[in-house]
């Protein structure tokens, strides 16, 4: 028997390292025709806000070389509807549930953390800090170590659930941000969120996306994500979750190799809705064939010299 389980901070043990990336897996239920939710390490929900959000005008997506841009605009049903309409199904499926959430002010983040903390059936929280801080003039929480740290400190006070902070890659120095949120009490960091990009249409001479810019995801960004995960994993003492362009078992293994304790699959869920289950099985096969009985022996085993 191969032990695929991983520990994300003290409180959260996943049965395997394969998670879904927020915003690419709906609220989980939508994938039940394709796989068993409780065969995954964890299901991460679409990012929730206090109140429902309509998101951006369409067009919201466009394909790019080996990737896509999205400007969904954080559309979601709001925390209340999630708790009443969606969480019960996740519980019934015995899924490990990570709730991704965001706000426009620290207060909003805090309020959400408090609400979610009181609920049973939620195994961890993931804070999305790639959101504009309206009080700081729209600067993203995630682009400044101090702003990121004060957000995490505030949220940390409101919940005892394992806390994952999801980092933005659109920064000069992602290590400093990871270290700041570690110091502020985050149990874990996950990275990367999308890189800001743009597409234009030559016929209409307009941006393709109504929002002008959007977030780049998919295999195109994998090398950048892998580099950032490698750098962060070597500079923090909390577990790192690797995200970005994972499209195969080998991709997932590469992130584990550079030091990710778990991984999240995003865009490729759209292309193959069963991919997370396939990757979980693929990792087991790989470890078996490599005669590695504990996944922890493989994680971070990259040789640098």
């Amino acid at each position, binding site marked *: 028997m191969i032990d695929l389980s991983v520990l994300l901070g003290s409180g959260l043990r996943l049965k395997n390292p394969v998670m879904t990336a927020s915003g690419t897996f709906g609220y989980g239920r939508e994938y039940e*025709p394709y796989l068993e939710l409780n065969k995954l390490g964890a299901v991460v929900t679409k990012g929730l806000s206090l109140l429902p959000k309509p998101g951006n005008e*369409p067009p*919201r997506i466009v394909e790019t070389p*080996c990737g896509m841009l999205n400007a*969904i605009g954080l*559309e979601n049903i709001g925390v209340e509807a999630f708790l009443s309409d969606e969480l019960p199904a996740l519980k019934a499926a015995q899924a490990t549930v990570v709730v991704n959430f965001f706000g426009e002010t620290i207060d909003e983040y805090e309020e959400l953390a408090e609400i979610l903390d009181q609920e049973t059936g939620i195994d961890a929280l993931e804070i999305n800090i790639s959101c504009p801080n309206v009080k700081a003039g729209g600067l993203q929480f995630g682009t400044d170590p101090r702003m990121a740290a004060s957000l995490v400190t505030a949220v940390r006070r409101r919940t005892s659930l394992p806390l994952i902070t999801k980092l933005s890659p659109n920064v000069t120095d992602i290590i400093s941000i990871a270290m700041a949120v570690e110091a502020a009490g985050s149990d874990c960091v996950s990275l990367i969120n999308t890189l800001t990009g743009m597409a234009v249409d030559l016929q209409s001479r307009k941006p393709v996306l109504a929002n002008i810019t959007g977030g780049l995801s998919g295999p195109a960004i994998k090398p950048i994500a892998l580099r950032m995960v490698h750098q962060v994993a070597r500079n923090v003492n909390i577990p790192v979750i690797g995200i970005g362009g994972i499209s195969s078992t080998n991709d997932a293994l590469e992130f584990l190799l550079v030091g990710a304790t778990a991984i999240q699959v995003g865009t490729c869920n*759209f292309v193959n809705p069963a991919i997370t289950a396939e990757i979980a099985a693929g990792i087991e096969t790989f470890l078996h064939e490599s005669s590695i009985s504990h996944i922890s022996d493989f994680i971070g085993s990259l040789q640098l010299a």
Partner: protein
Amino acid sequence: MFLFPSTVLQLTELTPDTFRIRLSSPENFARQFIPGQFVMASVAGPSHLDPLLKRPFSICRLRPDGFELLIKVVGRGTEILQHMAIGTLLSLHGPLGNGYPVNVIGKDRKIMLVAGGIGIASIISLLDYCLEAAYPLKNINLILGARTSSELLYIDEFRQLTEKGLTLSIATDDGSRGHRGLVTDLVSRQLQNNAENNPIILSCGPLPMLTALGKLAVEASCPCYLSLESRMACGFGVCLGCVTRNKTKDEKHPWVKVCHDGPVFDAATLQL
């Protein structure tokens, strides 16, 4: 709904930029299928990561060994499909979407099917359904639009059905066949001529055509169902990429998903 590897069984060029492709399907595929539904089809083989996303195509026709798509080449993905070798394996997902409201189309009802351009793919699936279910052909009015006569697809087949009662009208932009002008000119004329016996309209085609049609239907107070297109990443309701505005919804959350709530919508609910 299935996620399955599908073999390219046949590929037939119909015009320089449209082709028909026959694909294999799992056993119960046909049983689940509702006319107007679509599949998401991979266009890159397993060794290519680009183009990354699957593409949506209406299921045009069920076949004993699978089904057919009717595809117009407009970009990279459709170009790759056009040159696909027989025997190639595609990754397919479907049938997806709601399909046409076949339950509300009574057999005694006048049915107006309006297809613009490659929208005929979706309309054929509905016509096949009506034939299969033995709808009286004299109740069915098929109106086709194209840029020019050479782009009118399956026209001989439709002609033969007129002998069994089908009404067929044609509009081309250049007047090379039928009415010179828009398909909606024909619709408008026919609605006026039959003001007392309003049909149910079902249509698929370019957005400007659908918009005009939706307005005509409101004026004539006909029920009208339109099959929309949208950029899609997932095709099954999880990416929220394909939304369109819906009048009946809360202004705080005005969207419906074309892939999941549609692609077929009651024109009265759409903000066109």
